[in-house]
């Protein structure tokens, strides 16, 4: 992969919380239109890596580039244009609980487009239909199941048609069938819109379905990087153990 194909790049990034080092000199590139899965046990810094990509956290050290723009050098006020090109599906969807499902999806459209109200509602309905929630427009987030919340969160993350989609634990708390449905939604996005996917997961079957490239995080480092097949053949004991567990291997 040549450098100019990279849509996201980490250069020697380190991040700590207090005395706890989460990431240590992490470097990698993510190619445009690819699906990049970050694997690892809980608490290894996977979600932190996603939040660094969208500027929700700042690293102590290192540089992060999104679409050739160094976001680590930007002031908070300069981040919104970069963030508009990205969508973020949070682990628990993070829907605004004071707004209906439809209003959640319409929210970014109202903020960042000058479309008439009718068009905004149509677009929100269209996004909800895309994730199979066309009849839930007026429901409140609290009335949805875990899988529905996640799909609603996905619809909101897709509202502005982002070229990069960051997904935090798409299968967490979901049954295998709903998890597979979410995976196929993500794969459709990738094939139909050429969306770059960055997926944090500890679900190996899900990572195998989605990922073009997989990395395994352990103690603040990427200890393996490659396709699922390459990781299956890794000599690293942690990687082997991880790929064998939870249906892998």
């Amino acid at each position: 992969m040549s450098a100019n194909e990279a849509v996201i790049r980490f250069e020697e990034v380190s991040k700590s919380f207090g005395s706890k080092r989460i990431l240590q000199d992490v470097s990698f590139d993510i190619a445009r239109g690819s699906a990049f899965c970050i694997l690892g046990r809980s608490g290894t810094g996977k979600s932190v890596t996603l939040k660094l990509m969208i500027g929700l956290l700042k690293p102590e050290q290192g540089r992060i580039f999104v679409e050739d723009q160094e976001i680590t050098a930007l002031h908070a006020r300069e981040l919104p244009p970069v963030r508009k090109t990205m969508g973020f599906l949070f682990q628990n969807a993070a829907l605004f609980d004071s707004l209906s499902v439809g209003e959640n999806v319409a929210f970014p459209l109202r903020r960042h487009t000058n479309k008439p109200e009718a068009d905004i509602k149509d677009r929100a309905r269209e996004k909800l239909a895309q994730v199979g929630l066309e009849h839930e427009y007026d429901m409140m987030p609290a009335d949805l199941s875990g899988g529905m919340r996640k799909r609603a969160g996905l619809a909101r993350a897709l509202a502005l048609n982002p070229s990069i989609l960051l997904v935090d634990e798409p299968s967490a708390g979901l049954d295998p069938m709903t998890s597979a449905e979410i995976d196929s939604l993500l794969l459709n996005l990738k094939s139909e819109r050429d969306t770059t996917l960055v997926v944090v997961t500890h679900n190996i079957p899900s990572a195998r379905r989605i990922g073009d490239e997989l990395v395994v995080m352990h103690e603040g480092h990427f200890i393996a990087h490659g396709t699922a097949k390459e990781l299956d053949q890794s000599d690293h004991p942690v990687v082997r153990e991880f790929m064998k567990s939870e249906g892998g291997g």
Partner: protein
Amino acid sequence: MIERIGALVVAALAWAGEVGLFGLRALREALRPPFEAKELLRQLYDIGSRSAPLIAVAGFSVGIVMSMHSRSSLERFGAEALIPSVLALSLAREIAPLVAGLLVSGRVGAGIGAELGGMRVTEQIDALESLAVDSFKYLVVTRVLACMIAQPILTTFMSFTGIVGGFVAETVISDLSFRLYFDRAFSSMQFVDYVPASLKTVVFGFIIGTVSSYLGYNAAGGAEGVGKASTKSVVYSSILLILANVVLVKMIIFFFPEEIG
């Protein structure tokens, strides 16, 4: 022992400094577009209009009680005619600003602390940022401004309902007409009785909005953290409001010595 007290004082001052900077940032950000007018109006409705029934009931009750107390005292000197003006002056200068401030800090402070705290621990604030929205401007600035705008209006409303309560208490005992009662109530009221006290309530609104937003916006630790943010919002903003009242009354007396004194 002294070391522990010293450490506590230093920690309290550091906390107060942090909250102060948070509030000043809110004021600075309020001057920079986008102005989030729609959200500000929503907050004004939530903080202002929805507090009005509580303020009305409290003001009316305080007015009745104060009128009864004033009568029992003033009767001894044959000065019952002064009841309306004594009541109006007490309400406008001190009772309404302080009671309305404490009531709003209870209702609104707890609400802001819990709402923002809940949004923080469920990543809704991060979600706002990820949608390219400045969460500080959208959530904090609007709430601080709404408190600052709503507080003097609610205080005035409380003074009014208090005077009405006083009139109701008086009509049970005397046959004073509504018009005469209000004429007497406002006859001794001057500019300095109302305006400095109202400006004081703008500061109260700033304290309530800033403290509760700070605690909610920086909440951590799940449901327990949200509960703490909510409780602390009420306790800290009430204490700060009472302390600020002492300083502000002193300042009002300093700047308007003749009229107030």
